[in-house]
């Protein structure tokens, strides 16, 4: 739960980002990226000021946010773990890897672990198809991932979380 101070801070950040991006051609996607990069998600409270600045309806902003898989409307865990579900990774056993991850983390896709450390997401190709199966944690990509590798990645993410 965000306290009122951080809510205020977030509002100020969003307004600053709107001012920075609103005059670019096709500003909405770059703006949403900037907000998510900075705040971690697109808060619903941002819809009204965005729609005002870009002369769009709130429904249009909502439509764009929800159309794209990349944008999230709620805060994610400390780390986002994406497991590739596409054909090349399937040919190298990604299904077993997905099942292993869900079991170890005790979550399904689009959910966050109870300790808030990891959000699990599916992804459809990371362009690492020569070294399938692939997993991405944050911006770090991993290839030829085994169940043991995945355990190590989970441990590492949780350790980083505990330190932070």
């Amino acid at each position, binding site marked *: 739960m965000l306290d009122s101070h951080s809510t205020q801070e977030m509002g100020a950040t969003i307004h600053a980002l709107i001012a920075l991006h609103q005059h670019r*051609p*096709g*500003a*909405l*996607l*770059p703006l*949403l*990226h900037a907000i998510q990069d900075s705040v971690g998600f697109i808060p619903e409270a941002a819809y009204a000021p965005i729609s005002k600045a*870009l002369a769009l309806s709130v429904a*249009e902003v909502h*439509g*764009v946010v929800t*159309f*794209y*898989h*990349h*944008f999230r409307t709620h805060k994610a865990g400390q780390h986002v773990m994406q497991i590739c579900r*596409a*054909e*090349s*990774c*399937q*040919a*190298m056993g990604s299904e077993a890897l997905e099942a292993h991850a869900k079991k170890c983390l005790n979550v399904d896709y689009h959910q966050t672990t109870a300790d808030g450390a990891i959000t699990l997401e599916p*992804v*459809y*190709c*990371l*362009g*690492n*198809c*020569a*070294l*399938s199966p*692939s997993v*991405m944690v944050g*911006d*770090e*990509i*991993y*290839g*030829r991932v085994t169940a043991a590798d995945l355990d190590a990645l989970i441990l590492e993410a949780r350790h980083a979380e505990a330190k932070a």
Partner: protein
Amino acid sequence: MVTKIYIPRDSSALAMGADKVAIAVVAEAKNRGLEVEVIRNGSRGLYWLETMVEVATANGRVAYGPVKVKDVPSLFDADFIDGKAHALSLGLTEEIDWLKKQQRLTFARVGITDPVSLDDYIAHDGYNGLKNALKLSGADIVKIVTDSGLRGRGGAAFPTGIKWNTVLGCEAEQKYIVCNADEGDSGTYSDRMIMEGDPFVLIEGMTIAGVAVGATRGYIYLRSEYPHALIALNEAIANAEKAGYLGDNVLGSGKAFHLEVRRAAGAYVCGEETSLLESLEGKRGLVRFKPPLPAIEGLFGKPTVVNNVISLATVPIILDKGAQFYADYGMGRSRGTLPIQLAGNLKHSGLVELAFGATLRELLYDFGGGSFTGKPIRAVQVGGPLGAYLPESQFDTPLDYEEFTKIWAVLGHGGIVAFDDSVDMAKMARYAFEFCAIESCGKCTPCRIGSTRGVEVIDKITSGKDHARNIALVRDLSDTMLNGSLCALGGMTPYPVLSALNHFGEDFGIGDFGLSQESKAG
């Protein structure tokens, strides 16, 4: 003397620990008091050997791989910085058979140069194409591209020169060059390799396109799953701007060309050109009706060239060496080379650039080395998630757009995904529908609803319920999607579905098993 050591910054090399290897090499050299310069190059594309470390010697570059952090001390012990032997020695890079057998035109510099060094790019024939283009009229540039026979490498294979000519012929105060870098097809990564390994070649190609058709602004629509490509592109663009290769007055020609990278947001359908344009305009990525063609009414309603990364990155060598040079490669109406991406269950996966005409079998076995698991290769999917599955009996098909059309398959973006005999093809057909349902933009009914109904029908087939009737139903549904969808997402999902059904019917219970299922049910 400072020894130059090359360690890739390519995503797939990073996925195998290239950053850690680079840090270990620098630290070990420092400990031993050796002077080395580590250059973060692109990948040579021999991915099973990543992290591949190369050392510049008097005889040429010597390669070692796959190098792990733990191997670094022993490499120094063996004097690898003088190119000496080690258990991981691969010999002179240029002499590696897998690389030597290729015809690298678009990928001429990838893995060789420092991707973001403009000096390195220029020292390796970079910007020769643009310099030639600036001496020519727009119509002459377009003619060279047309005569080269270059066709859209994104998958549709539409002649690039003809598209450019339409934009050239439009009168408008603003035109755009848009690069489709939303490489979402599973089994493809050549766009990524170019953007991470030789971003200047894409920048040069787009600049030439701009000069040719009179467009002053370009956008690279880059998928959000490629953070390392974003970094390399932005670095390269900044360097090109500083040196006057981009900006208000490109190389003093009086012509302007500005370039910007825009991040996509994880929607597969935005690889479709009209949906991509909607997304660039800041909207939901809904597919547009055609006509009007994007060449006439594209981005913000202005004439727009939309080309794939590989198409644009191939333009510089054509303008440098001439249309005939490029057209001399290839077969039939498929001229030039195709950067093929080997993926999935293969021993030696990686980037193979060859003239059109090589067979699938050569790629799977001579280059790919057979399956990774050692089991027989049962099926391959060529051309991404919307491409057909091919059985062993079709492995002698040459890679050529028209030859693939003849067997109801597509070359697409040149990705080849191999599966061993543990694959369940009914499951792959189900996945094709499932993927379509997840990624459908929702504008047309066959795609939006057909994909979900498709999943249900496949489930009925595999559970043996009304078997014959549901087989007929999935064919009928596929026919509707093929002919009634607005774009290739719904329109081509039947390729993997029906090819799986036609070539691997036993997985759908067709044959003895199917009959007995049916008779049980009936």
